[in-house]
Protein backbone atom coordinates (compact mmCIF):
# COMPACT_ATOMS: atom_id res chain seq x y z
CA UNK A 1 0.00 0.00 0.00
CA UNK A 2 1.87 3.05 -1.20
CA UNK A 3 1.05 6.45 0.14
CA UNK A 4 1.65 8.31 -3.11
CA UNK A 5 -0.94 6.44 -5.15
CA UNK A 6 -3.43 5.65 -2.45
CA UNK A 7 -5.78 8.62 -2.34
CA UNK A 8 -7.75 8.92 0.90
CA UNK A 9 -11.03 7.07 0.50
CA UNK A 10 -12.30 7.50 3.99
CA UNK A 11 -15.87 8.82 3.88
CA UNK A 12 -16.48 12.34 5.13
CA UNK A 13 -19.15 13.15 7.61
CA UNK A 14 -22.12 14.52 5.69
CA UNK A 15 -21.99 18.28 5.77
CA UNK A 16 -24.35 20.00 8.11
CA UNK A 17 -26.75 21.40 5.55
CA UNK A 18 -27.70 17.83 4.59
CA UNK A 19 -29.69 17.20 7.73
CA UNK A 20 -33.28 18.06 8.55
CA UNK A 21 -33.04 20.04 11.75
CA UNK A 22 -34.58 19.01 15.02
CA UNK A 23 -33.73 19.54 18.65
CA UNK A 24 -31.60 16.38 18.98
CA UNK A 25 -29.15 17.01 16.15
CA UNK A 26 -29.01 20.72 16.96
CA UNK A 27 -27.91 19.93 20.52
CA UNK A 28 -25.48 17.34 19.19
CA UNK A 29 -23.63 19.77 16.92
CA UNK A 30 -23.79 22.35 19.72
CA UNK A 31 -21.68 19.96 21.81
CA UNK A 32 -18.93 20.24 19.21
CA UNK A 33 -19.40 23.96 18.73
CA UNK A 34 -19.22 24.68 22.43
CA UNK A 35 -16.24 22.33 22.72
CA UNK A 36 -14.36 24.40 20.13
CA UNK A 37 -15.33 27.60 21.96
CA UNK A 38 -13.87 26.08 25.13
CA UNK A 39 -10.63 25.31 23.28
CA UNK A 40 -10.30 29.08 22.83
CA UNK A 41 -11.40 29.44 26.45
CA UNK A 42 -8.22 27.58 27.40
CA UNK A 43 -6.21 30.26 25.59
CA UNK A 44 -8.08 32.92 27.59
CA UNK A 45 -7.32 31.01 30.80
CA UNK A 46 -3.63 30.59 29.88
CA UNK A 47 -3.23 34.29 29.07
CA UNK A 48 -4.89 35.18 32.39
CA UNK A 49 -2.50 32.92 34.36
CA UNK A 50 0.56 34.23 32.50
CA UNK A 51 -0.55 37.83 33.18
CA UNK A 52 -0.99 37.08 36.89
CA UNK A 53 2.47 35.49 36.93
CA UNK A 54 4.04 38.42 35.08
CA UNK A 55 3.28 41.00 37.76
CA UNK A 56 0.89 43.88 38.43
CA UNK A 57 1.60 45.83 35.22
CA UNK A 58 0.99 42.91 32.88
CA UNK A 59 -2.08 41.98 34.91
CA UNK A 60 -3.47 45.50 34.65
CA UNK A 61 -2.96 45.46 30.88
CA UNK A 62 -4.78 42.14 30.49
CA UNK A 63 -7.55 43.18 32.89
CA UNK A 64 -8.19 46.23 30.73
CA UNK A 65 -8.80 43.91 27.78
CA UNK A 66 -10.80 41.26 29.67
CA UNK A 67 -12.87 43.92 31.43
CA UNK A 68 -13.66 45.85 28.25
CA UNK A 69 -17.13 45.90 26.80
CA UNK A 70 -16.21 44.17 23.53
CA UNK A 71 -14.66 41.26 25.39
CA UNK A 72 -17.71 40.61 27.54
CA UNK A 73 -19.70 38.96 24.78
CA UNK A 74 -17.05 36.34 23.91
CA UNK A 75 -16.48 35.84 27.64
CA UNK A 76 -20.20 35.24 28.15
CA UNK A 77 -20.05 32.85 25.20
CA UNK A 78 -17.27 30.89 26.89
CA UNK A 79 -19.25 30.70 30.16
CA UNK A 80 -22.43 29.61 28.36
CA UNK A 81 -20.42 27.06 26.36
CA UNK A 82 -18.81 25.74 29.53
CA UNK A 83 -22.11 25.09 31.29
CA UNK A 84 -23.67 23.59 28.16
CA UNK A 85 -20.70 21.33 27.38
CA UNK A 86 -20.50 20.26 31.03
CA UNK A 87 -24.18 19.28 31.27
CA UNK A 88 -24.37 17.74 27.81
CA UNK A 89 -21.07 15.94 28.43
CA UNK A 90 -22.61 14.28 31.48
CA UNK A 91 -25.52 13.24 29.24
CA UNK A 92 -22.99 11.70 26.84
CA UNK A 93 -21.32 9.81 29.68
CA UNK A 94 -24.73 8.42 30.69
CA UNK A 95 -25.33 7.36 27.07
CA UNK A 96 -21.95 5.57 27.18
CA UNK A 97 -23.46 3.24 29.79
CA UNK A 98 -26.17 2.35 27.22
CA UNK A 99 -28.87 4.12 29.19
CA UNK A 100 -31.26 6.94 28.41
CA UNK A 101 -31.93 6.24 24.73
CA UNK A 102 -35.72 6.37 24.82
CA UNK A 103 -37.28 9.18 22.80
CA UNK A 104 -38.71 10.75 25.94
CA UNK A 105 -35.40 10.58 27.84
CA UNK A 106 -33.43 12.14 24.99
CA UNK A 107 -35.94 14.96 24.68
CA UNK A 108 -36.19 15.62 28.42
CA UNK A 109 -32.41 15.45 28.82
CA UNK A 110 -31.89 17.89 25.97
CA UNK A 111 -34.31 20.40 27.44
CA UNK A 112 -32.75 19.99 30.90
CA UNK A 113 -29.25 20.62 29.52
CA UNK A 114 -30.29 23.80 27.70
CA UNK A 115 -32.17 25.10 30.75
CA UNK A 116 -29.22 24.35 33.02
CA UNK A 117 -26.79 26.19 30.73
CA UNK A 118 -29.03 29.25 30.50
CA UNK A 119 -29.81 29.39 34.23
CA UNK A 120 -26.19 28.81 35.30
CA UNK A 121 -25.00 31.54 32.94
CA UNK A 122 -27.73 33.87 34.23
CA UNK A 123 -26.58 33.19 37.80
CA UNK A 124 -23.02 34.00 36.74
CA UNK A 125 -24.24 37.31 35.34
CA UNK A 126 -26.36 37.94 38.45
CA UNK A 127 -23.41 37.52 40.85
CA UNK A 128 -21.61 40.22 38.90
CA UNK A 129 -19.14 38.18 36.87
CA UNK A 130 -19.55 40.42 33.82
Amino acid at each position, binding site marked *: *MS*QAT*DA*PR*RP*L*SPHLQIYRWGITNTLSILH*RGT*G*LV*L*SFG*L*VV*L*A*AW*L*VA*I*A*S*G*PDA*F*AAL*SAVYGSLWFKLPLAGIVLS*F*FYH*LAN*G*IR*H*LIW*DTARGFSHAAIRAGGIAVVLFALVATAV*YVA*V*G*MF
Partner: protein
Amino acid sequence: MSKADDRSSRKSTVVHWWHQRLTAVALIPLGLWLALSLPGLDLGSQAALVAWIREPMTAILLGLLALAGTYHSWLGVHEVLVDYVPDAAQFRVTLLLSLVAHVGVLAACLYAILRIVFGAA
Protein backbone atom coordinates in the same frame (compact mmCIF):
# COMPACT_ATOMS: atom_id res chain seq x y z
CA MET B 1 3.53 5.07 9.89
CA SER B 2 0.79 4.57 7.32
CA LYS B 3 -1.98 7.00 6.60
CA ALA B 4 -4.48 4.73 8.28
CA ASP B 5 -2.65 5.08 11.59
CA ASP B 6 -3.53 8.76 11.78
CA ARG B 7 -7.26 8.37 11.45
CA SER B 8 -8.67 4.97 11.83
CA SER B 9 -6.43 2.32 13.31
CA ARG B 10 -8.55 0.38 15.76
CA LYS B 11 -6.09 0.54 18.63
CA SER B 12 -5.60 4.30 18.51
CA THR B 13 -9.36 4.83 18.18
CA VAL B 14 -10.07 2.84 21.33
CA VAL B 15 -7.33 4.70 23.23
CA HIS B 16 -8.71 8.02 21.95
CA TRP B 17 -12.25 7.09 23.05
CA TRP B 18 -11.08 5.95 26.47
CA HIS B 19 -8.82 8.96 27.13
CA GLN B 20 -11.59 11.30 26.05
CA ARG B 21 -13.95 9.77 28.66
CA LEU B 22 -11.29 9.75 31.39
CA THR B 23 -10.50 13.43 30.87
CA ALA B 24 -14.23 14.21 30.59
CA VAL B 25 -14.90 12.64 33.99
CA ALA B 26 -11.91 14.46 35.52
CA LEU B 27 -13.07 17.77 34.06
CA ILE B 28 -16.49 17.61 35.76
CA PRO B 29 -15.17 18.32 39.30
CA LEU B 30 -12.22 20.41 38.05
CA GLY B 31 -14.40 22.64 35.88
CA LEU B 32 -17.06 23.02 38.55
CA TRP B 33 -14.37 23.87 41.10
CA LEU B 34 -13.05 26.73 38.93
CA ALA B 35 -16.54 27.96 38.03
CA LEU B 36 -17.53 28.06 41.71
CA SER B 37 -14.21 29.58 42.84
CA LEU B 38 -14.09 32.54 40.46
CA PRO B 39 -17.11 34.48 41.83
CA GLY B 40 -15.57 34.38 45.34
CA LEU B 41 -12.27 35.95 44.23
CA ASP B 42 -11.21 39.57 43.92
CA LEU B 43 -10.62 39.32 40.18
CA GLY B 44 -9.34 42.88 39.94
CA SER B 45 -6.42 42.32 42.33
CA GLN B 46 -3.26 40.63 41.06
CA ALA B 47 -1.99 40.25 44.63
CA ALA B 48 -5.19 38.49 45.74
CA LEU B 49 -5.01 36.10 42.77
CA VAL B 50 -1.33 35.35 43.45
CA ALA B 51 -2.19 34.55 47.09
CA TRP B 52 -5.04 32.30 45.91
CA ILE B 53 -2.89 30.39 43.39
CA ARG B 54 -0.14 29.97 46.01
CA GLU B 55 -2.49 27.88 48.11
CA PRO B 56 -1.28 24.31 47.39
CA MET B 57 -4.75 22.99 46.58
CA THR B 58 -5.36 25.79 44.08
CA ALA B 59 -2.04 25.25 42.32
CA ILE B 60 -2.59 21.49 42.10
CA LEU B 61 -6.18 21.75 40.86
CA LEU B 62 -5.29 24.46 38.33
CA GLY B 63 -2.43 22.31 37.03
CA LEU B 64 -4.70 19.28 36.69
CA LEU B 65 -7.37 21.41 35.01
CA ALA B 66 -4.83 22.70 32.48
CA LEU B 67 -3.58 19.16 31.80
CA ALA B 68 -6.98 17.48 31.49
CA GLY B 69 -8.45 20.49 29.64
CA THR B 70 -5.78 20.74 26.96
CA TYR B 71 -5.66 16.97 26.45
CA HIS B 72 -9.46 16.74 26.17
CA SER B 73 -9.45 19.70 23.77
CA TRP B 74 -6.71 18.14 21.64
CA LEU B 75 -8.74 14.92 21.36
CA GLY B 76 -11.91 16.84 20.50
CA VAL B 77 -10.25 18.96 17.81
CA HIS B 78 -8.72 15.77 16.37
CA GLU B 79 -12.23 14.33 16.04
CA VAL B 80 -13.54 17.41 14.26
CA LEU B 81 -10.57 17.36 11.85
CA VAL B 82 -11.13 13.66 11.07
CA ASP B 83 -14.74 14.42 10.18
CA TYR B 84 -14.29 17.59 8.18
CA VAL B 85 -10.82 17.70 6.62
CA PRO B 86 -10.88 15.18 3.77
CA ASP B 87 -7.46 15.92 2.27
CA ALA B 88 -4.76 13.81 3.91
CA ALA B 89 -2.02 16.44 3.65
CA GLN B 90 -4.28 19.20 4.96
CA PHE B 91 -5.38 16.91 7.75
CA ARG B 92 -1.80 16.29 8.85
CA VAL B 93 -0.89 19.97 8.75
CA THR B 94 -3.94 21.08 10.77
CA LEU B 95 -3.41 18.23 13.24
CA LEU B 96 0.20 19.33 13.70
CA LEU B 97 -0.85 22.97 14.18
CA SER B 98 -3.41 21.83 16.73
CA LEU B 99 -0.75 19.85 18.58
CA VAL B 100 1.62 22.83 18.69
CA ALA B 101 -1.19 25.11 19.92
CA HIS B 102 -2.32 22.70 22.63
CA VAL B 103 1.20 22.00 23.89
CA GLY B 104 1.85 25.75 23.88
CA VAL B 105 -1.27 26.51 25.93
CA LEU B 106 -0.47 23.74 28.41
CA ALA B 107 3.14 24.90 28.76
CA ALA B 108 2.00 28.50 29.32
CA CYS B 109 -0.45 27.44 32.05
CA LEU B 110 2.05 25.23 33.88
CA TYR B 111 4.84 27.82 33.55
CA ALA B 112 2.58 30.54 34.96
CA ILE B 113 1.40 28.41 37.89
CA LEU B 114 4.97 27.38 38.78
CA ARG B 115 6.23 30.93 38.48
CA ILE B 116 3.47 32.19 40.78
CA VAL B 117 4.04 29.45 43.35
CA PHE B 118 7.86 29.61 43.41
CA GLY B 119 8.57 33.07 42.03
CA ALA B 120 8.66 36.49 43.61
CA ALA B 121 5.72 37.91 41.63
